[in-house]
């Protein structure tokens, strides 16, 4: 087990290096002049521009810049953004918002998605099954940003149940309910479909027949014997989908004007703030890879047939 984790962590290193390099290269190519607008109405003096470029290593070739950046990164220095504020400070605040948003979205996935999937699977072919099948297809085919803006309009503006935008840096968790639901909506649908498929398949399995022959109640045969097996792939899905969730956060945070990581990346891109974007995304990729490792370990716990030796 320990060895497995070490091996996986080692494998992660080239992946992180590669992914951050790609991101770095793309951000490096960001067009436009980062000093625009830094000196009031007038263009900045040549002196200032030179100093700025020197400070941010903008004159070095791409690989050298990347090397310098990386050297700082491994020492825990995420750099300063173009306004001179350490990115680390910015991120700490923003990750708590996006972290809560993502965790709530996963909670929605787990609770609503699994519940809907189980109901549909147990009552296969009945009304509730058809309802779940149709509504999940519905959610999957409508782009998240349409769902987002629509729900924002209904719940936020028309009925005023939830705040329509959450621009505060210390947004209360309750104000994130609607955005989290929107963020998780696509995955809720996928989780429901996956749960249903697995459940239906496992309900036909030999060990469920055994459970019946043992005189167990139907609830126990389904709830204890079938559910665990059916949820193993669902856990994997939720883990693998975490990346999509982080990507989706950019869209969701944009809709609800949330000051999370997504909003930060978006602003960074628009203000040509390379360091801010690269550092944020790098942390994001590392989080994603760690979550995947965690899911694989969890997988080993849920399914005794998998061993991590």
């Amino acid at each position, binding site marked *: 087990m320990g060895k497995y984790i070490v091996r996986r962590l080692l494998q992660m290193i080239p992946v992180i290096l590669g992914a951050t390099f790609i991101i770095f290269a793309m951000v490096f190519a960001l067009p436009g002049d980062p000093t625009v607008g830094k000196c009031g109405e007038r263009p900045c003096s040549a002196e200032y521009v030179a100093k700025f470029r020197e400070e941010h290593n903008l004159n070095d070739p791409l690989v050298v810049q990347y090397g310098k950046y990386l050297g700082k990164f491994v020492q825990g220095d995420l750099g300063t953004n173009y306004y001179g504020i350490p990115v680390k400070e910015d991120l700490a605040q923003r990750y708590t918002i996006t972290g809560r948003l993502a965790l709530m979205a996963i909670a929605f996935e787990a609770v609503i998605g699994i519940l809907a999937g189980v109901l549909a699977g147990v009552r296969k072919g009945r009304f509730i099954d058809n309802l779940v099948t149709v509504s999940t297809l519905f959610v999957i085919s409508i782009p998240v940003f349409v769902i987002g803006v629509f729900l924002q309009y209904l719940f936020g503006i028309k009925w005023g149940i939830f705040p329509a935008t959450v621009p505060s840096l210390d947004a209360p968790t309750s104000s994130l309910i609607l955005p989290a639901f929107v963020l998780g909506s696509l995955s809720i649908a996928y989780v429901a479909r996956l749960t249903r498929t697995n459940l239906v398949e496992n309900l036909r399995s*030999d060990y469920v027949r055994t459970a019946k022959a043992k005189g167990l109640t139907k609830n126990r045969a389904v709830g204890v014997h079938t559910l665990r097996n059916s949820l193993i792939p669902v856990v994997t899905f939720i883990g693998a989908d975490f990346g999509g969730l982080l990507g989706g956060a950019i869209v969701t945070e944009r809709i609800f004007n949330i000051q999370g990581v997504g909003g930060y990346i978006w602003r960074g891109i628009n203000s040509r703030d390379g360091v801010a974007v690269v550092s944020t995304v790098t942390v994001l990729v590392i989080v994603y890879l760690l979550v995947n490792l965690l899911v694989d370990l969890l997988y080993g716990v849920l399914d005794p047939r998998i061993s991590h030796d």
Partner: protein
Amino acid sequence: MTTTTTSSAPVSDYKPDADGRLLEVDDLHVEFHTQEGVAKAINGVSFDLHQGETLAILGESGSGKSVTAQAVMGILDMPPAVIPSGAIRYCGQDLLTMPEEQRRKMRGPEISMIFQDALSSLNPTFPVGWQIGEMFRQHRGMNKSDAYAQAVRLMERVAIPAAKERVKQYPHQFSGGMRQRIMIAMAIALDPAVLIADEPTTALDVTVQAQIMALLAELQEERQMGLILITHDLGVVADVADRAAVMYAGRIVAKAGIDDLYARPAHPYTRGLLESIPRLDQKGQTLAAIGGLPPNLTRIPAGCAFNPRCRMAQDVCRTDVPALRDVGQQKSACHFAEEVLNG
């Protein structure tokens, strides 16, 4: 060995009748309503089972052996299965009209079942001891550690070495034979009066097969269970069964004491089976001595269902269904049973 069980086991509400009869299946019919049509899987099966008796049920693949067993057990999926008529009486009470909750409570303590493929029949995600102990926890309200102790005792009883150490292992960590022993341990956990074994050895190596059959015979002897042994292996049946019923297309076509069945078959199908013993377990393969395949259950031939494959078939076989009737010491559903018996 059973001091713990017998002392903790509640006295059963069910008593066999005077001559020890436990189970009585009476004119059972089972249909499957599928998109392809109605498959008449069981068409009037009757048999009974006494304490301490072993009844073998024989027949080709698809003849309805498992469906019969699962109907008795009450674990058929309905739908698609439908039981339009018939009765299954256990100690005089009809299981088919009994409330489901009462019937569920009988599975395990009264009637129990083991299946062919122990690997897929055991839940892969729970330790074997947990699965055996579940019988005690669910039916007897036992706590977890006592249930594990019972599991160890049972695993020892079915001769699993190092039971104490292995009780927390998972099914995939055992060999095929050991897994089947675990299934058996689970099935006999609550001292059932009837044990149904549906091809318990088909998936195993030959040497292991003999060991498992010996174990079943031993347990049956020890506990005076009624044992229904469904098998393809006519060789094994000869040693352990008292009586045998031969099924074809959802009917019992022959019934006999085991020695008569082998020595003096009274039905052409039984005779064919005996002549093709070595190949009987090859599913989908034509029986060497019979030829052809069993009928499609949505279109069972008129008259004797066996007539398209029967070498002795006459016109009457294509029009009249032969009833199961006494022929000497045995029963046979053939218009020409006497000729078969004597010829």
